[in-house]
């Protein structure tokens, strides 16, 4: 399995698990407390950094022949990023242009986080999928 695919799998699992936990805790915490919400966000981010850092280090230490990244990796990454960008734009329009007319603070913040989370999950899902079945050129 290419290193980039291994990285993508680690990212995908970490993002799904951590953001699922994040949204569960954030919706059950005090919504009016900025510090409570920031604490949950910070804890999620730190957990992601630790898990992905350890996973990346383990993958990087494995020996492999040839270059670690080649044109196929870049083609896959480009396509996944292109799709995820569109998802992010939709999320930004929702959280920044539409929701402010009907919702306030907490919902807007969580919508923005959700837009980032969903676009990242989409990106890594596409990367993993394209490595398996092709169709990226």
């Amino acid at each position, binding site marked *: 399995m290419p290193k980039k695919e291994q990285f993508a799998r680690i990212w995908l699992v970490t993002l799904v698990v951590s953001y699922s936990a994040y949204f569960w805790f954030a919706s059950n915490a005090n919504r009016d407390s900025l510090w409570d919400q920031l604490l949950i966000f910070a804890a999620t981010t730190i957990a992601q950094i630790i898990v992905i850092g350890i996973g990346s280090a383990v993958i990087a230490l494995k020996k492999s*022949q040839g*270059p670690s990244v*080649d044109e*196929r*990796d870049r083609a896959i990454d480009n396509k996944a990023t292109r799709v995820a960008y569109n998802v992010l734009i939709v999320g930004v329009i929702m959280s920044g242009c539409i929701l402010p007319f009907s919702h306030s603070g907490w919902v807007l913040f969580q919508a923005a986080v959700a837009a980032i989370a969903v676009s990242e999950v989409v990106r890594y899902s596409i990367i993993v999928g394209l490595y398996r079945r*092709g169709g990226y*050129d």
Partner: protein
Amino acid sequence: MTKRRLSNRIRLERFLAKEMTQAELGQHVGVTRQTIAAIESGRYAPSLETAFVIAEVFGKPLEEIFHWEVVDR
């Protein structure tokens, strides 16, 4: 419209080149073994540069290694 896909005879050429492995070919070309496997199986169409280098490794012109294959009408 006729549907076509890029086909190749890399597997055969590797066999003829003293059973060169995908990893060895990848090292010559500068791509990973997985990319060679993807090219061979038709899951990835390489860049023109990579296609030329692959043909050069086998000492054949490009059109002898890669060709169009009609898959649907």
